[in-house]
Every structure is written in C-alpha cells, then in structure tokens.
C-alpha cells in the first residue's frame, strides 16, 4: 500500500495527536466514565491505523517493527496478570484482589470514588486499565500493520 496524497498526510499529522489524547483520556478515566482499556486502546490503535493508511504500510513498517509491537503487547499482558498476582502475594489476599484499596501503605491509592477528576480512586483498576490499554494498542496495531503489509500491492498484483 503506497502513501496517499499530501493533503491526506497533512490532515493526518494534525489530527493524529488529538486522537491519541482522546484515546489516552478514555483509558485513564476508564473506572469513572464509560470506556476503559479496550475502548481507549481501540481509539489509539485506530489513530495509528489512520497513519498507516495515509503514509502506506511500507513506510510505517520502516518506522516501527512488528516484533517490537508484540513485545509491548506481552508487556501489557504481563502487567495485567502481574497486578492480579500482586493481589495474591500482598497481605494473603486473593487472586485479582484489589489490594491498593483501603490500605495505609500507599495512601494516594486508597480512596474510592472521591470525584470525577481524580483518577487514583479505584485501587488497581486504573493500573489494570493502563496494562490493557497498552496491550490493545500494540495488539490491534500489530494486526492491522501485518495485514496491510502482507497484502500490499506490488505491481498491481497481490503478492
């Protein structure tokens, strides 16, 4: 897939940061408002997909390798499972235990629901949202990138 015209590329460059911010906002506020890791991640990944369409898969593949994306994806998943394991390890609790809630060691995390603008109000849930968001961004973008790169046109014929 080759890149598109200059108009498209310019508009993409302007809107790409806005989409990023919006997606990250949805990830960060997942526990307070509708949304969360997957939805925000999907928004960010669609922004990345827009860059892919505008600049072409060959250019994008030159900028970011699919291998690095899968490492990021693994890191996101490990973060999620790791937080779940921490719930098991700290304080003899249970798997997936919200161990940051109602405790005194890390006081910034222990309150619940004290306002719409505070994102540290649900224990581990925002952290899990970040992990899921990382995984979804990397995973979805890797899928789109690999598919676009694998089916790119070469001399008018699918390779």
């Amino acid at each position, binding site marked *: 897939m080759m890149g598109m015209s200059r108009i498209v590329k310019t508009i993409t460059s302007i809107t790409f940061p806005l989409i990023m911010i919006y997606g990250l906002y949805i990830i960060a506020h997942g526990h307070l408002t509708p949304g969360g890791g997957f939805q925000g991640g999907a928004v960010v990944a669609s922004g990345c997909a827009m860059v892919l369409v505008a600049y072409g898969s060959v250019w994008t593949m030159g900028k970011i390798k699919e291998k690095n994306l899968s*490492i990021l994806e*693994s890191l996101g*998943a490990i973060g999620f*499972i790791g937080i*779940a*394991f921490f719930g098991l390890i700290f304080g003899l609790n*249970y*798997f997936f*235990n919200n161990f940051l809630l109602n405790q005194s060691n890390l006081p910034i995390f222990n309150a619940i629901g004290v306002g719409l603008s505070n994102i540290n109000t649900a224990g581990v849930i925002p952290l899990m949202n970040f992990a899921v968001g990382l995984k979804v961004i990397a995973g979805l973008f890797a899928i789109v990138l690999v598919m676009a790169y694998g089916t790119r046109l070469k001399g008018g014929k699918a390779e």
Partner: protein
Amino acid sequence: MNEILDGLLTHSPALIVAIPLLGAFLTPLISRVNDKLRNIFVIFIVALTGFFVFLLANDIFSNGSIHTYVFGGGSPLTDGGFAIRILFEVDGMNAFMAIIASILAFVGVIYSWSFMKEHTGQDKYYTLILLMIAGMFGMILTGDMFNFFVFLEITSISSCALIAFYTNKGKAVDAGFKYIVISAIGALFVLFAIGILYSQYNALNMAVLANNITYGFLDKIALVLLIAGLAMKAGIVPMHMWLPDAYGRAPSSVTLILVGATQASLYGIFRMVFSVYGKTIGNINASAVDTIMNVNSIGWILILLAVLTMLIGVLMALKQYDLKRLIAFAALAEIGYMLLGLGVRLASKFSGEFEVTGAGSTTTMTQVQFQGFSSAALTGSVFHIMNDALDIGLLFLVAGAIYLATKETNLNKLGGLARNMKYTTVFFLIGLLAVSGMPPMNGFASKLIIYESAYQINPIVGIIAIVCSILLLAVFVKVFHSVFLGPKIPRLKDVKEVPKSMLIAMGIIALIIILIGLFPNFVIENIVQPATDAIVNYSSYIGGVIP
C-alpha cells in the same frame, strides 16, 4: 511447610489457569534470549501447573471436598443472595478432567521440543500452546457460565491459529478457517443460551443457576442451544466434519492437546446437563414425573447421535489412506462411546410404583428413578474420556513421529518401518490394542462397562458398539500392516528412529495406558467413581456456593 502447602492448595484453582497465562506472555520475551531456555521454561511452566493440578486433585479425591475459589476474595453472594463475583468451583469431575488435561499438556510440550525443532516461529507456537492450555484449564475449572464462554473462545482462537500453523500448506489453512467458523458459531449460540439464562435468573454462576432453574419454555430453548453448540465443538456426527480436517492437518503435538480441548467441550455438555439443569434432569423426587418424557427423549436423541458417531467414524476411517486423517476419524468413533454413556443415563429415567418402607409401615407410592445400570454407564463414559485421550493421543504422537522420520503420511507410500523404528512400532502396537478395546489395555475396561449398560437399555445399541470396536481393530490392523510390516520401501531405507524427547513423550503415555489397563479397578475406585458421583450429585455442587 504445611502452611505453605495449605496456602498453595487454597489458591491452586486460580494458579492452574494463571501460571500458563503468565508463561504464555513471558515466552516471547524469554525466546529473545535463547531457544533452549525457552523450551525449558515452557516445560517448567506446564510441570508447575501439573503439580498444582495434582495437589488439588489429591485433596479433592481423598477428602471428597469441593473447592470454591472466588476471584478478588470475599463472598460470592451479596446479602440478598445476588451472585456477583467470578468464581472457580472444583469438584471431582473438574479435578478428573484437569488431571487428563495436565497429562496431555505435559506430554505435548515435551514432544514439541524435537518435533518443532526445525520450524520458524517457535516462540509464537509456544505462546499459543500455553494460551490453549490455560483456556482448556479455564473451561474445565470455571464455575461461571460467561467465564466458560470466554475460555471456550480463548481455546478455540489459539487452537485455530495452531491448526493453521503450517501456513505454507493450503489444506492446513483451510482446516483452520473451517475450525474457527465452526467454533465461533458454536460459541455464539452458547453465549445466546447464557443470555437467555441470565435474563431469567439474573445470575451467571452455575451453582446459583442450578439452584433457581425451573425448566420453563425459555430454559428448554437454552438447553437445546447449549447442547447443540457444545456438541458441535465436541465433534458429534453430523457436526463432525471439521474434526478430521483439524486433527489431520495440525501438527501432531497440537492435535494431542486439541483432543483435550474437544473433551473439555464434552465436559461442558456433562456439566450443563447434570449440574446446571440438575434439578430437572437429575431430580428423583416425585415432582419430576412431568419431565421424564422430555429427559428420555433427549437421552434417546443422544444415543442415536452416539451410534451414528461411532458408525460413521469407523466406516470413514476404514476408507482413509492418510494416516492422520484416519486416526482423526477413529477419534470421532471414540467420542461416540462417551456420548453413549451420557445418553443411556438420560434415557434410563423412569417412574414406577415402589414399595417405600417408612416408619414401621410399608407403602406403595409413585417414584422417579434411574435404572441401576445407568450409573455404570456414566462411570464407563467418564472413564472412557480418560482412556480415549490417552489412546488417541498416543496414536497421533506415533503418526507425528512417522511424519517426522519419513515426511510422509500417505499409507500407500509407507511400509516396512518396523525394522528401523523399533520403539515407535511398540508404542503404536500399544495404542492399537488400547484404542480398539483389546484386553488387557485400558480401552477394554471402559468399553466393557459401556457395552454392558448399553446392552441393558437396548441390545441393538450394545451390539453396534461392539461391532464398531471390532471395526476399529480392523482399521488399525490395516495401518499396522501397511506402515510397519512388509518389505523395506527403497525410498525409506535410511529412516532413523525419532529423537529422544518424542520417545519419552510417547513412553509416558504408553506407560500410563498399561498401568490403567492392568489395574482398572484402582483407577475407577479412586478417581473415576468420585468424579461420576460428583457430576451426578447436583445438590452438593450447589452447596459449594450457596451454603
């Protein structure tokens, strides 16, 4: 030391799923370091999972307890009896299935070491294998309907990607596509049924559902959707056509674990029928008279499907000339035996006049009961799940070994391998005897119970079961003759025995087969009978969550 063990035991239901999941995501990172390290890591992860499975199973089978693990801690029920949390509920049947799954997973990973040595993309292969194992354990251990669906999908997505692992072969990709279409639709209908149940009882927890279920009109629809969707995933005729494609085209180590995944779907049917709908189907109070007709007709339909599964599986296997496809059809026939036990159990419910000895006086009253032989049928069926997984698994491993040694699975082009591959020949012989129900192998022990109980409900069904077993023997004698016997084919003169890790993997399964075959009663009394009692006893399953 004991405290640590107790702590691990408490958390083992979650750890059994969580450890392979963590391992799956760590594998791509570790494989950047070293291939050998990654293989050792994967084997270690699976062995650790197996350790937790045996820890849990040992406790359950020796104490007869039910382990309930609530994710996030706390009580599964709110004050109003409203079920909110995801939980794993492990009784005898779950533990039994988990033992089978852990054996298959362990052997499959050991086998992969040499079998996959020359392929690229091994880090993805191991990641998917571990994901598939995690999904399989999740399906087996979960006590939550929606969680069951999620793990069903995890298993089918990862196994589909593994079936299409040989992407340079068109047929493998085709088989993978068929499998994902089948499993997506089957799982969606299961989800639809879960939605119907949720709409009525406001609960996703299996035990809470089982406590509240009334068997109304919508419940019947949900039961049909559950049975049909899971039966398609389990490969029951006539929804079996994906099975030979998928089993035949996948790498052998994957097929071994895929057998476990298929049986997890079969376990799903058992769990739905006997636990979630236990108050209707397992009920033997006088109030259950109205539903006998309905239960019997499901039972007879299942018997019919089972007989068809056996017959078509065996007849098609007789005709195949591709080794793995042939074994896949034989696996299909074996699934029929397990379904037969389930069908016999359901079809044998009846009501009649019984003399009840009360306090000092004997009165005659109408009661609902299961025929005596039906519990034996269920025992045989559950026992056969284990035997089938081992037998068919061993045969697939041998087929993979033959493929690795000769790069050929076509029976017409093979011959005389017994001279060069002695151990493989012995393992195939063991698998052959076991799968066709020859004494003294394990297949005979379970099949004998199924024959006898099926004969009790209808002689024709029992006879067909025996004939199918004989035909299975014929099928594998043909394979043995055309692959291992005969003169050396010139092209295969320099064939070597397969590497050690594959021999070890096959040896483990062969050893278990012989041990079970020699001491079937030990296995039945200590593992199979508790599992059968657990699945029949729906009230104790409910009691695991609702005190």
